[in-house]
């Protein structure tokens, strides 16, 4: 039972971001981390290994060369090896192109479960997992608050409109997990040392059999404008008054905006 966890390197939450002349995020100028929601996928994979449900964990990332740092950090948490797909043709790849590339790399790695976080911090479309599943012709088990594996099938516990469901599919599958699977472990010093010796391969588009020409420059979308959010009026404050007075003033404020 082999798991490949797909991870993305993203700018640190709250980091100062800059843009290149063509309105793409300048990823070289900011502190980068493993996408925080991907750490839950890593944790879930490592728990399956700990419990004997899985044998091996490989990490897969697509990104610039410095994304290897994120893979090393993941390897420090646990797992066996890692693959970075990097290619000049992938600068500015959108969700479609990312899915094409990850699907091709996963075809080569052939895991029983391709596991991902539920969203990325910097884009939040959450479209890559479903698009990867579609390209690979595999079922998708998404938004799992828990992932279990047995008898050649994977099951996830997923919130429904009125409660929760267990959804099951035969392996191989593509799956995503939420932050309810359990807090990600920290890398130990021993883990950090061990990670330096774990295999990390770098693959180009050619290595995964993707013709750069079919990627249409890495994107089917383009950003035409990028600007700061609109200025909001300054926050009005009510403080140092008794609760009843505060309540009256809030009610006045709501009434003035026809909210009550």
């Amino acid at each position, binding site marked *: 039972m082999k798991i490949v966890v797909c991870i993305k390197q993203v700018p640190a939450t709250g980091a100062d971001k800059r843009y290149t002349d063509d309105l793409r995020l300048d990823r070289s100028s900011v502190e980068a981390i493993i996408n925080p929601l991907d750490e839950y996928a890593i944790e879930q994979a490592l728990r399956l290994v700990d419990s004997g449900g899985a044998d091996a964990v490989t990490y897969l990332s697509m990104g610039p060369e410095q994304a290897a740092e994120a893979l090393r950090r993941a390897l420090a948490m646990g797992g066996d090896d890692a693959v970075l797909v990097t290619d000049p043709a992938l600068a500015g790849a959108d*969700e479609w192109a990312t899915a094409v590339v990850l699907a091709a790399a996963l075809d080569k790695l052939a895991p029983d479960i391709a596991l991902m976080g539920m969203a990325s911090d910097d884009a939040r479309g959450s479209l890559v997992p479903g698009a990867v599943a579609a390209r690979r012709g595999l079922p998708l088990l998404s938004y799992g608050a828990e992932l279990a594996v047995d008898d050649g099938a994977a099951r996830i516990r997923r919130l429904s409109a009125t409660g929760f469901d267990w959804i099951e599919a035969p392996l191989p599958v593509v799956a995503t997990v939420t932050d309810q699977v359990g807090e990600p472990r920290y890398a130990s010093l021993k883990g950090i040392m061990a990670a330096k010796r774990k295999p990390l391969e770098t693959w180009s588009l050619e290595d995964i059999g993707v013709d750069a020409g079919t990627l249409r420059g890495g994107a089917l979308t383009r*950003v035409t404008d990028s600007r700061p959010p609109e200025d909001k009026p300054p926050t009005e404050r009510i403080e140092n008054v008794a*609760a009843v007075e505060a309540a009256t003033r809030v009610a006045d404020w709501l009434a003035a905006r026809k909210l009550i």
Partner: protein
Amino acid sequence: MSNDILFLAEFAVGRPARSALELATGAAELAAASGGTAVGLAYGSGATGGAAALGAHGAKHVVVLGDEDRPAITFAGAAAAAVGASAALALLAPATPNGRDLAAALVGLLDLPAFGPVRAARVVDGVVETEQATLQGSVITTARPVDGAPTPSVVLVLPNTFTPAEGGTGTAEVTTGADVGGSPFGKAKVVESHEADARVANLDEANVIVAGGRGVGGEEGFALLRDLAEVLGGAVGASRAAADAGWIAYQLQIGQTGKVVKPQLYIGAGISGAIQHKVGMQTAEHVVAINRDRDAPIGEFADLYVVGDLFQIVPALTEEIRRRKGGA
């Protein structure tokens, strides 16, 4: 010429989600600019019976993909067939877990450009243009498909981006989608279902949300918020801390890993306003925060910030609003 506008119409538990009405109207607005018509792709229980009524909100035609509550991506084969048979410029999808999954499958199956979640979408000179808050809301970007990109553009749409047209009398023409057998997505099956707390409301449908965080302290505190929500005709929501503490169902969690909401009025009590919560509610039209800490981050983006004890202020506010509404 591709100029129709498709939209995903989610149904569940026998009726349309509010997003289905919003996107019917949104699709009709875009279709008016593109010179096409609004066409719905409906799925979930109640879709067959409720499809025609989407005409009142702007849909001209609705294709029913399936009439049962199961993961939306399992309808992807039928959806892809319907999209392939259409001449559509764009497909609007709700930015919900099910909407995203089905949209994602279409992107992967048909090689389509994807946008969102967006806070605005329009057709300009025959081209889809979207507006999105990215990088935790620090930047607003406008995006379009590249020249010659395949159509339709798939656009994830945040709740309340479009306001459902009311009072319409139109009836949409309804057809049944092609049943595509053998789709790999269909191998994912619901094997167990559990009902949760009966109090779980649908946050997507609430115009007013009263949300509580760690500062609410427990279920008794949430009872106070529920009273306020009730007098305002709204629903109760929560931060992740409150859901993790077990004070409230995860269905009511707002934020990066919960729901993204866009109510007319959001009142946050005992919520600090961490970035992970902010991304779930920052597009609310009016934000009121009640917090004991005068320097909580929510004070930076609230419209009205009340510094004080929520256990006193919330009941007083409930009472005051009830009095003004002329109730007991």
